[in-house]
C-alpha cells in the first residue's frame, strides 16, 4: 500500500533522513522505532508531504504521491495524527471532528462516522461542546485520533501517540489503536515506547541517525535482546 524508496530529507546542511526505503502492506500495523532525533518524525512528515523530500519516491497504492500537496495526499487516503496532537484548542470537540471530515461530501455518512467515534471514545461525547483546549492530554490524543479517522483514511500514521501521557492513559491509547485493526485500517506507528508498540505491531523498523538499522517481524525484535538494548534503550530482563 505504501512504498518509500531511497528517501532523503535535508534541513539546510543537516540530513535527517538518509536513504530510507520501507514498505507497508494493506492491513498491517508497522512500528517505526528509534531513539530521539533518529529522523522518525522527518520521515513520516515527508511521507505525508509536510516537508519536501530532497530525493526519493513515495508511492501510495501504486501512485507516485511525492509531488502532491498535503491536502491531496489526505484526499488519496493517507492521514497523519501529528506529534503533539495539534488539536484546535479554539474550536469545540464537535468542530474539531467536523474539520476532520472536511474532505467528505455526504453529510449522512459523516454523521454516522461521528457517532461511531463518540461510541469508541465516550469521553469525547461528554466533552462534545467544550473547547479543545480545555481537554486533558489523553483526551486531546483521543480527539486527535478520532479527528484523523473522520476522513476515513486507508493509511493512518500516528506520530508518538503516547508522548507525555500518564502510563494508565498510554495503556488506554494503545488498546484503542489495537482495536482499530478491526476497522480494516493500515497503520504506521512512530513510537519511542518500543515495548508497548511491539506488543501489537506485525512488523517493525528501527531507525537510527536517519538510516534503517533493522527491519523484520515484531516478534523477532522483541526476542532480540541486543537490538532492544542497542537502539531502543529498553532494559530486557
Amino acid at each position: 500500500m505504501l512504498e518509500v524508496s531511497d528517501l532523503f530529507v535535508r534541513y539546510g546542511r543537516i540530513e535527517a533522513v538518509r536513504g530510507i526505503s520501507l514498505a507497508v502492506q494493506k492491513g498491517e500495523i508497522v512500528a517505526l522505532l528509534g531513539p530521539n532525533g533518529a529522523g522518525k518524525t522527518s520521515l513520516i512528515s515527508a511521507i505525508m508531504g509536510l516537508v519536501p523530500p530532497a530525493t526519493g519516491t513515495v508511492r501510495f497504492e501504486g501512485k507516485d504521491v511525492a509531488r502532491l500537496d498535503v491536502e491531496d495526499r489526505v484526499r488519496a487516503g493517507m492521514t497523519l495524527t501529528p506529534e503533539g496532537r495539534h488539536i484546535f484548542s479554539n474550536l469545540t470537540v464537535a468542530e474539531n471532528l467536523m474539520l476532520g471530515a472536511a474532505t467528505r461530501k455526504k453529510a449522512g455518512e459523516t454523521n454516522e462516522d461521528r457517532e461511531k467515534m463518540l461510541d469508541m471514545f465516550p469521553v469525547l461525547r461528554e466533552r462534545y461542546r467544550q473547547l479543545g483546549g480545555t481537554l486533558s492530554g489523553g483526551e486531546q490524543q483521543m480527539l486527535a485520533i478520532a479527528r484523523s479517522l473522520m476522513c476515513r483514511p486507508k493509511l493512518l500514521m500516528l506520530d508518538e501517540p503516547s508522548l507525555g501521557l500518564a502510563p494508565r492513559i498510554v495503556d488506554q491509547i494503545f488498546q484503542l489503536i489495537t482495536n482499530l485493526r478491526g476497522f480494516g485500517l493500515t497503520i504506521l506507528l512512530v513510537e519511542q515506547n518500543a515495548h508497548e508498540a511491539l506488543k501489537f505491531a506485525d512488523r517493525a523498523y528501527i531507525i537510527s541517525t536517519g538510516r534503517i538499522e533493522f527491519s523484520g517481524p515484531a516478534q523477532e525484535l522483541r526476542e532480540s535482546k541486543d537490538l532492544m538494548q542497542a537502539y531502543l534503550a529498553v532494559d530486557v530482563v
Partner: protein
Amino acid sequence: MEYVVQQILNALSFGAEYSLLALGLAIVFSIMGLVNFAHGELVAIGGYMMYAMAAIAIQSLWWILPLAVLFTVIAAVLLERVAFRPVRRAPATTGLLTAFGVGLILQNIFLLTVSARPRAVPVLGPLNQTWSVGPFTISSLQVMEMLATGVAIALLLLFFKRTPIGVAMRAAAFDFATVRLMGVRANRVIAAAFAVSGFLAGIAAIFIIARRGAVDPLLGFNPVLKAFVACVLGGFGSLPGAVVGGFALGAIEVLILVIMPQHWGGLRDAAVFGLVGALLVWRPQGLLGKTVELGDKEA
C-alpha cells in the same frame, strides 16, 4: 440634548465604518499574517463600480448596491490570486511590500483611466435623507450604516460558526498547517478570507460614497489607515478587537471634535493619533489583544 444625540450617532456611524474596514484587515491578517494595505483600493474599486454602473444608466439602487458589493468581492479574490498567492511563501515583509505596491498600482490605474479628480456619484443620494424621529432630526445614512454593520457582523458570526469553510478559517487562524493536514485546501481558505474582506469593503464603499457623493483614487486610503489604527487599538488579528477598536476610534474622534475649539479642527487627526498612542503605552497589546511573551508556546 439634540446635540448629544447627534454626536452619539456620529460616533457610532464613524465607528461602524472603521469596524467594517478593520474587520476586513483583521480577517486576512489572522489567517495569513498579511497586513493588506491595498484594502483601501478595494473600497475605491467598489466606488468606481458604482460610478461606472450609473454612467451606463443603471439607476436602481436594488441593482447598484448588490452588484457593487459583488464586484468588490470578485476584485478581492482576484487580487489574492494574482498578487498575493505568488508571494505567499515569502517572508512577511514581502507580502507587506506587495500590498503597498498593489495599492499604488491600482491608485494609478484609477488616475490614468478615470481621473485624478473626484467623479460625482449622485445615484446614492436617496440614501442620504433627514428623518425626524420625535424631537430629533437624524440622518438616514447614519442609521442605515449602523444597521448594515450590525447585520454584517451577525452574518459573519453565523458564517464562522455554521459553515465548514468558516470553521476551517477559525482553525486556520490558530494553526494553518494542521488545517491542511485535515485535507482542507489552503487556497480555498485564503480565497474565502479575501472574499469576506472584499464583502466588508464593498459595504463600506457604499456608505463612504453615499456620504461623499463622489469617488476619487484615494477614496479608501485614509479610511483604511484609520481602520489599521483601529485594528492596532483593538489588538491586531483579533476580530472582536477590530470591532471594538473601530467603535472606540469613532468615539475618540467625535469626543475630540466636541472638546476641541472649532478653529483647531485641523488638529483632529493629530489629537486622535496622540490619544491612541497614549492608550497603547498603557495597553501595548491593544484593548482585546493577548499579551504574548517571547518564548510563550501558544500565541
